[in-house]
Each structure stands twice: as C-alpha cells, then as structure tokens.
C-alpha cells in the first residue's frame, strides 16, 4: 500500500472509483499472459485522459514510485508484472478512436482501444490496418505499440512499427511529448516515434497514436499445404521467398500443433502430417492467381503430400482463426505452456526447426513449433507442468540453447513478443555489451529515476552464453 497522502493525491486525480488497492485488485494485476510469474503492485489506477496520466506521473515521480503501463495484460514476456511493486496504470478507459482522416489515410486513437475493434471500424470504412497479433480480440493498440507486435500479415505488410506515424506520450516527469504526426515524411531529429515503439513501457506512457491506414487488398486466396516431412515444409518456406514471392501470410504448424488446433477448432485436419503450411496471398486478382499457382508448384516440388485451396472466404477465415488459437490450444496438452519467440533469417527456417527438435530431444522435453515462418519468426512452445520443478529446469535449459541456436544462425531472441522480464538475461547475447550501454543511456534520458516499468528489458545480470556441444 502507498502512503495515505500519496493515495489521496492519486484519488484526487482520478476519483475514488478509479484508484484501487484492495487485495482483489492487486491480485488481478499481478500477472499477465506469461506463465509462472506473479508479483503484487501497490495500487491500480485507471486514468481517463492524457492530463490525468500527466498528473499521476507527477505525483509518482515526486515520491519515486514505479509505474507499469498496462493494456490487457496479454504479453508473453512478463512485461506487466510489477516486479518492483508500484502502481499499475490500466489504459482501458482511454479507448476512443479520436479521428479517422480519410484524406490522409490515418487514424488517431487512444491506447486502450482493443485492436480488433479498431480493425473492424477501419474495415467498415473500406480501409485496412494490417498488424493483427493473434491476441487482437483482447490486446490494446497501446500494448501492441509498446511491444511492437506482429501478426499473420507481418511478412508482406510489416508489423506495428510500420504503421505508427506519431505518438503522444507522458514522460516519467509528467511532461507530455508529441512525436511525428500525420506526416509520411519527417526527419526532424532522432526518430522518437520509432524509439517508443517497442519500448515496452520503459520510456514513457503512450497516450495517443497516429496510425497509418492502407487500402485493403482487392482479392485473396488461402491455401493449405501438408507434409509428411518436416524438413520439406520448412524448405518450402525458404524457397517461396527465394523465388521472390512474398505471400501475405506464411504460417507453419508442426504435427503436435495441428493435433491440438484441430481438437479445438474441429476442422478435420489430417492428423498424420508432420507439418502444415498455411499460405495466403492477397492483392490484384491476376497476381494472386499467378503467385498461388507458383507456390503450389513449389510445395509439390518439396514433396507436399497435398495442397488445397480454401473454397470460400469462410473456410479461409476458419483456417486463419484456427492458426491464431494455436498457442492457447497447445495448453490443452499439459497444464503449463511456455511459448518462445526465436527468430532467424528466413533462409534458415529449416535449419532452425531441426535444431529445435534436436534440442527438445536432448533435454527430453516436449516442444511444439509453429509460427510466422515467412518472417523467420518461430514459436517453439514447451508443454510442461510448473509444479514439476525438475522438468521446468530442463525446459529452461532447452530454451537457452534454442536462443543460442537462433543467434548462431543470425537470428534474435525475440521477433515480436519483446524482452520484458523473461528475456532480459539474454538481451546482451543479441545486442552486445556496447549495445546495452547505449540502450541504458537512452533509458536514463527518458526516465532518470527508473520509475517506468522497472526490472524490464535490462537484467541485473546477463546470462553467460552457453557453449554448445553439437551432435
């Protein structure tokens, strides 16, 4: 609990309904989508405007109290777990679409807006906002920006960072800054917009975003290619790209994933396949037809067992929805599901998939793999049980090796979920110690007292990189 005087100052800003510190509120803001993490905050606050955010920050800054911005708490890196206590700031009340500018093709929104509601609104106006994390029915635009979320369309359309043109944000001091705007071009100084995208709530609280919209594709086709051989499927991914075709979606699911997804979504997928690729192309009709035909050829040349094109938009949507549920559907297998986010250059997908399987086997853990293969972004997912400590240790060791393998193949420790708490010990593997120092200096400039989401991104100690014995 915060000191009574500080509580009263916060209540004076938002009203007594919107500052809570009863046990129930604390417990329900002690976790996010990341397994096995929990820590209680001191309070939970629900601001309604930028001015309120600013006033709150001033109070917290004066008393050096940490603040954790929170959308819907769906992140998978421990990003909203208040490990050093403090106040969780829930953005749900700031959820309006402030403007859709049809002349400039931009929208201005508040951070607490649910991504799916935004997409639905934009689509009703005949426009398109491509970033579509699988969690979009729940996650917020603010959370998406803070994590730089990607989705099934990332391969062709890019991720959240490619659609954020401007931001309004409140610094730790309570000062309000504005970056970018409705402009398509802007090189006035450092690109603070890009810096804030993916900053995981550690640099500022985002209070407003100007987002780029694009015209929707005219036509699209979805297909499913099934493989008895995992390697063939993975090679297909690299080959499609090599052939200079960029599908709008190119997703990979291994056998274990197919089984659970089918159990959940009742699609009647064949359960004896080692891997399935879900491929979508969109754009001008002619180009789509040509690409799909060419992709089909490639699939067959890589020994696809069967290739089929969705008959109707409903069927296609069902397939995509099923893919979006893959992660949580895996949770049906064992009580605890730990999903990781290793990413490699697209040409290395096949190699990485084999590495993951080898590592899983070595450590005797179950790891199912699916992901945005077209971006090189794989989600090796361990199904385990948090209560079995010994097994959890093996899982952790396996993931450590998987990160190591990703880096060795020219990849990274996270492609879209962020570093947060969970991957902070490994960040140095990717960016090096000089990289960490620069990042810390940036943090210092924005947040000199380390009040914004403390404990995230920067670990107290980096993990030693393991030296692997191959074979």
């Amino acid at each position, binding site marked *: 609990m915060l000191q009574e005087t500080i509580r009263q100052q916060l209540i004076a800003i938002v009203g007594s309904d919107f500052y809570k510190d009863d046990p*129930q509120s604390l417990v*329900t803001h002690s976790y996010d*989508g990341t397994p*096995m993490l929990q820590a209680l905050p001191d309070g939970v606050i629900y601001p309604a405007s930028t001015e309120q955010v600013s006033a709150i920050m001033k109070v917290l800054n004066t008393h050096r109290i940490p603040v954790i911005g929170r959308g819907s708490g769906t992140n998978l890196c421990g990003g909203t777990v208040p490990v*050093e206590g403090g106040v969780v700031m829930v953005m749900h*009340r700031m959820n309006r679409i402030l403007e859709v500018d049809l002349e400039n093709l931009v929208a201005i929104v508040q951070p607490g807006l649910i991504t799916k509601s935004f997409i639905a609104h934009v689509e009703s106006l005949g426009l398109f906002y491509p970033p579509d994390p699988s969690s979009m029915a729940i996650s917020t635009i603010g959370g998406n920006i803070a994590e730089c979320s990607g989705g099934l369309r990332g391969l062709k359309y890019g991720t959240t960072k490619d659609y954020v043109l401007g931001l309004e944000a409140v610094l730790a001091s309570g000062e309000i800054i504005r970056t970018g705007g409705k402009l398509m071009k802007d090189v006035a100084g450092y690109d603070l917009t890009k810096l804030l995208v993916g900053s995981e709530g550690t640099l500022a609280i985002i209070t407003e975003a100007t987002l780029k919209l694009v015209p929707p594709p005219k036509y699209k086709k979805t297909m499913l290619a099934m493989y008895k051989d995992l390697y063939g499927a993975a090679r297909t991914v690299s080959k499609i790209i090599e052939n200079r075709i960029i599908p709008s979606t190119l997703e990979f699911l291994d056998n274990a994933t197919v089984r659970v997804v089918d159990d959940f979504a009742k699609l009647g997928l064949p359960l004896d396949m080692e891997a399935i690729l879900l491929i979508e192309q969109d754009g001008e009709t002619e180009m789509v037809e040509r690409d799909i035909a060419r992709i089909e050829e490639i699939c067959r040349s890589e020994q696809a067992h069967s290739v089929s094109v969705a008959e109707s938009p409903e069927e296609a949507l069902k397939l995509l929805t099923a893919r979006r*549920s893959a992660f949580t559907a895996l*949770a049906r297998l064992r009580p605890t599901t730990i999903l990781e986010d290793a990413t490699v250059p697209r040409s290395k997908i096949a190699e990485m998939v084999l590495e993951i399987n080898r590592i899983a086997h070595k450590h005797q853990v179950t790891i199912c793999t699916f992901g945005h293969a077209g971006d090189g972004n794989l989600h090796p997912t361990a199904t385990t049980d948090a209560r079995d400590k010994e097994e*959890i240790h093996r899982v952790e060791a396996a993931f450590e090796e998987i990160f190591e393998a990703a880096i060795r193949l020219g990849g990274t420790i996270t492609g879209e979920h962020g570093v947060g708490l969970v991957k902070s010990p490994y960040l140095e593997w990717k960016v090096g110690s000089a990289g960490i120092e620069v990042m810390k200096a940036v943090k210092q400039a924005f947040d000199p007292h380390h009040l914004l989401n403390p404990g995230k991104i920067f670990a107290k100690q980096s993990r030693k990189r393991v030296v692997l014995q191959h074979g």
Partner: protein
Amino acid sequence: MVKTEDRLTVGITSATAANVNTHGTEPACSSPRSPQLQLAGKLKLRLDEDQLTNCMRCGFCLPACPTFRETGIEAESPRGRIALMKAVTDGLMMPDQSFEEQMSHCLGCRACEPACPADVKYGQLIEQTREAIEEHTESHRWWVKPLRQVVFKQLFPHQKRVRLLGGAMQLYQQSGLRKLARSAGVMKLLPAHLSEMEQVLPNASSKGIVQKIGSHHPAKGMKIATVGMFRGCLMDMLFTETNIKTVELLTEAGFEVVIPDTQACCGALHAHSGETEDARSLARKNIAAFQAAGVDYIVSNAGGCGAILSEYDHLLHEDEQWREGAVWLAKRVVDISDLLIRSGKLATAQTKEQPIRITYQDSCHLRNVMRSADAPRKLLREVSGAEFVEMFEADRCCGSAGTYNIVQPEMAGGLLERKMEHANATKAHYLLTSNPGCLLQMKLGAAKHGDGQMQVQHIVDFLHERLVHNSSEKAKEQA
C-alpha cells in the same frame, strides 16, 4: 524479492505469498481459525488444482464475459476470478467478503468456456468455489439465505410442494387477490425488481403435465425412438402448456414420449449456488427415474436444466455407486431443438400470419454447456413466411442466469437493458428463447424497454402453433 534474473525462481516463489511482494503489501490479515482462514482451507481442498494451473492467463475469455464487458475490470473477468481463486489456494490472499461478492457477481453463463482454447473448466471451478463459500458465508443479503433454504431445500426437491405452490399462485393470480395486492400497494414492499418480475409471471398451475395428460404418449406414425421427458419444476408449474406442446411436437416428429413421475428437480440452481450435496441427491433421483423408464434419449426444453443433466457425470464423478448411471444419463440428454433437427421427421412449419420477423435469444447453458446454438436457428429458419433475423450478441447472457436477477439486480438490470436495445433493433415480432428463466427475463425486458410490438415466446410454443396445427389441418384437408 523476486529474482528477475531467473524466471524459474520467480515462478516458483510466486506460489508462496510472502516472497512475492515487494512493497510491503501484506495479504489481508486474519486471526488463526478465523472464518476466512477456514474458508481458505475449504477452497484449497475443493478447487481443482489442475484446472487452476491450466488457465494460462491468455485472456481469450475476456471479451466473451458479460460482467467484464459491463465493468472493464479484470477482477470481473474469468481470468481475474480464476486468478483470485488461485491466489487463495496459494495463500496469496484471504477469501474476504469482496472475494465472496466477486464470486457471486459471476453469472455462471459459462460463455468463457467455449472461448477458452486451453479448455479450462471454469464452470466447475466456480461451482467448487461457491460450494465452499456457501458453507461459510454470512455475507448474503439478509433475505437470500432463508429464501434459498425454503426454495431449494423445502420446495424444489418436492414435486408435490411445487404443485401446491403452483396451486397457491394460481389462487392468488386468479382469485382477485393479485389485483388486490397490486392495488393495495403490497408489491411496493418487495424490492423493485421482484415486484417487476411478479408482473410478468405467467399464470401458474396446480397440475403438472403428468396430472394433465398422463405420462405415456405413443409416437404418431413410425416410432423413431423412446424419449423420456424432463419436465422441470419451473417449467411444469409456470409453463405446463409449453410442456404439453413439447410432448405434441415430439410425438408428431415420431418419438414415443414417457414422463416418469418420480423424476425430481434437476438441481441446477442448487449446484450453481454452491448447494452441491443437494444437487447430487436430486441427480440420483433422476437417474433412477429415467433408468427405470428405459429411454433412448432424455429430452429437455429448458437450457438450464438440460445443461446440468448433461453434467451429472461430473457432479457424481466421485460417487462410485452412481457414477455409471450418471454417465448413462448425461450421454442421453438432448435439447428439444437438437432432437427435432437431428432425428425427428418434421413437417415444414408455416405461419398463417402476415410475413413475420423472428429473432432468437440463446440460453447460455444451452449454448455454452450443451453447445447447441445451430439447432434452434435451423428450426426457425425453416418456418416459411417468417424471416429470421439474428440479434446482435444473441449469445450474450440476458442477466437472468438462474437466480442471478433476483440476487444481483443491478448487474442483471444493466445487462437486460443492453439486451433489449439489440432485441429492439431487430424489429422482430417474436423474440424466442429456450429456457424459462430467459423467457421470463425477456418478458420483463420487453415490458420495461420494449416497443410494445414484440412478443416473447418459448421456441416450443412458437413452433407448435405453426407445426402441429398446420400438419393436423393438413391431415384434415387430406382426409
């Protein structure tokens, strides 16, 4: 303090309250052997640890949950409620009064279950929680517990008493007493939502279906199968006619219908409010009754009853003697709409009125537990001369939820208001439902917020008027 360097350590220490906190927030304190501590112990025993662990906190269930939608507060969501249950069993939090209140805020509509890809059995968790709370709590509104005592223990388990009450209500409604009571302002003594409810109650009956038409009804034409009808208590007292029409629809569709008179209340209300032992003993009676009747199906025309019947296997899974019978019954339970669509032979229905527009409000338990959302819609789409319009968020709870509208009037009222906005927007002439609780709630909604044009009916009554009559008329014409 939590070691951020090691996710593992964080995870495992977080299971113990003391290590988790960092800024000195103590779990709500309580003296040893305090009621809270006792309740915590009970919860630890009762709650299914696997299910609690299975919840991966992905939040997929949040958009499905009506109470979260109304309030936007994490604690009012399935993920939040599960986190609270887990926090209690982990010793991170005491089950204080606000915990109890939060658990009774849940509608039990189970919309969170189909939304959950991890297949967390939320319904079981909330029932286990309520069962533990029920044995301890003092926190109900003053009239809830005695009312439940009377209704659950003294009334529903005894069909004869239900009928007696039906008779008393009939007397009250028809003898002029009701008029007198209304004009004398007696109603004003009741909480507003109860007197509103009183106004939409249909005429009760002292005779149930068996007393009125007997318990055995042969199929018309070739017999497809024998179905045992579950008559329900509320259904049988307030909607006897609907029960009779159910039998007629079924025999018309080729089923032989038996209505074992020894069947009891389904136990749904008991189970949902934590009186699980009572629910179990009712379940045993029903299993015995229907097994003796030797039926192929057990048909229900009330989503709430059907759902609990289909979960008897879970209710009695620890009861060695009755486990098998419970599975036997649960497997055979089917909703009237499903049975008609799946197995029955049905004459096409036709409306005699001007072309009409109809819409349908799902019964949560029919949809989310029995997973039947298509069958009623298919039936309604087949009615010629009627246009079926899907209501926005027809799958969302209307706020009736068993006794919820009686014990949680504020939340229920909010939900109903929103529901009626959507219902009115369809401009339907008929709003149809599949459960007596929903039916009454929607009647109340139409009376309070309706445009005066919309009739609220049970789907059976609606179809009966247009199927049986038509086909018997057709038969007459042909003869």
